[in-house]
């Protein structure tokens, strides 16, 4: 049955690895055309990125992604912990309630935030009844951040929850028997054992957060421009595949750095699968 593996290997080379090699090659193409006929090797696409304008986009994207990840972790860990400590029948239903929202199209859910945060939105109308506002809630960094936390929070909660469930209750009992109080047990036993789930959660939030262009486009309007938007624009409108590919390669580089620090342990890690 090893021939199946060879078959899939060939498939993966053609559809997974080769396209990335293409992007890598495009990123060194000096001529803006999409064909390889007039390929000229150049570093101009990477040099172009060191323009202050693009560097600012880069810094903004990293900052937004980092803050979203931290907030997701700060909310997600206690949530996962609370659910994992519920009675088994109850926690299964509660975690289901967590997954259900993901079954509605993510664009539509993001669009719904426009209906909530907009000038005539639900929130401003509610505030209006209290005599406050209308506040400018949309088309700024906060709106983009809300959209990201909203969309990516389940990716933080689910892996942490899975890992917490796997912790052997005997270890917690042992800690208590040995005289640890609740706080000590939590910080010295539960948290260290749940770290693989935390790492998975961090990468699973950080990577989509740094590369999104949909959320920043819908909720940030023209005011917020992230790396994802830059790539989108180069491929969809500007037709500059070389520069777009270079930015995509920079994104892959950030991803590799994040994975290095995330140290995801695939064998024992708290993958969502």
């Amino acid at each position, binding site marked *: *049955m*090893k021939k*199946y*593996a060879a*078959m*899939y290997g060939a498939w*993966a*080379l053609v559809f997974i*690895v080769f*396209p*990335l090699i*293409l*992007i890598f090659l495009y990123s060194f193409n000096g001529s803006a055309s*999409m064909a390889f006929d007039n390929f000229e090797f150049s570093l101009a696409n990477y040099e172009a990125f060191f323009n202050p304008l693009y560097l600012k986009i880069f810094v903004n994207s990293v900052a937004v992604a980092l803050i979203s990840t931290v907030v997701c972790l700060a909310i997600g860990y206690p*949530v996962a912990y*609370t*659910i994992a400590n519920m009675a088994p029948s109850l926690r*299964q239903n*509660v975690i*289901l309630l967590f997954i*259900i*929202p*993901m*079954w*509605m*199209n*993510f664009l*539509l*859910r*993001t*669009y*719904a*935030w*426009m*209906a*909530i945060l*907009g000038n*005539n*939105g*639900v929130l401003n*109308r509610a505030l209006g009844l209290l005599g406050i506002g209308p506040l400018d809630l949309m088309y700024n960094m906060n709106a983009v951040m809300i959209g990201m936390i*909203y969309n990516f*929070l389940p990716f933080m909660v689910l892996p942490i929850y899975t890992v917490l469930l796997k912790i052997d209750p005997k270890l917690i009992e042992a800690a208590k028997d040995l005289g640890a109080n609740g706080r000590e047990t939590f910080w010295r036993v539960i948290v260290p054992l749940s770290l693989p789930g935390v790492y998975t959660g961090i*990468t699973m939030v950080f*990577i*989509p957060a*740094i*590369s999104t*262009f*949909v959320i920043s486009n*819908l909720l940030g309007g023209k005011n917020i421009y992230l790396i*994802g938007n830059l*790539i989108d624009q180069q*491929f969809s409108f500007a037709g500059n595949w070389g520069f*777009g590919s270079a930015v*995509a390669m920079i*994104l*892959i580089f950030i991803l590799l750095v994040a994975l290095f620090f995330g140290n995801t342990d*695939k064998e024992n890690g708290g*993958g969502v699968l």
Partner: protein
Amino acid sequence: MKKFANRALLALVFIFLYAPIVTLMVYSFNNSRLRGRWAGFTLKWYQNLFENPTILEALKNTLVVAVIATLVATILGTVAAIGIYEMRGRSKQALLNMNYIPVLNPDIVTAVALMGLFGLFQLKFGLLTLTMSHIVFCTPYVVLSVLPKLTQMNDNTVEAALDLGATPREAMTHVIIPQIKPGIVTGALMAFTLSLDDFVVSYFTTGHGVSNLSITIYTMARKGINPSINAISTIMFVVLLVLLVIINKKTMKEEEV
């Protein structure tokens, strides 16, 4: 007291998660095109839905792509997982790593890379390229959900079947497949939902005039969405919800047995 604080946080998070969904559902019954203004209850958006060719076409594309992609990805992923399971050493690790690329890669990078591939081969962008890319990003998830089931399987049963004179094909259909079925079902479900929900890859790999629901919503979002989209999403959400609850009930029962 601490427990109370945790439960309160959980409640707040649930309000946060469901607020947009409730908003959309409520607006699907709103007798006004404008969001933010309630003008009475109506079912007209549900009626309009069946007269709106753009939305119906997008729905058809979404479903056709999701069904084909799920079928192909499930078969390919299952077969691949069986092959990978039998492998050892470096080549196994290499294949597993390749399989992880689409899972970890930002979807926009996968999207533009596939766009480059189809462009190089001068394929006509449309339904075909759209379906192919969905197969590409769905298959690794099937592999990843089937592999653990293979590891849990007792190898001796396969050997026993072969010793008793089963051909490899028979061993596959009668011994291996039944044992890894839960993994295959999970993988297929995951592929289907991923495909239904995808926007980024679809957006870059489809051609002019061929859009799915996500692309239609994206193009509409800036100008103001036709409330019929809210209606169709409400329907899809309810259908998927019922399906999910049924599947969940069934697996819970199976676990009890």
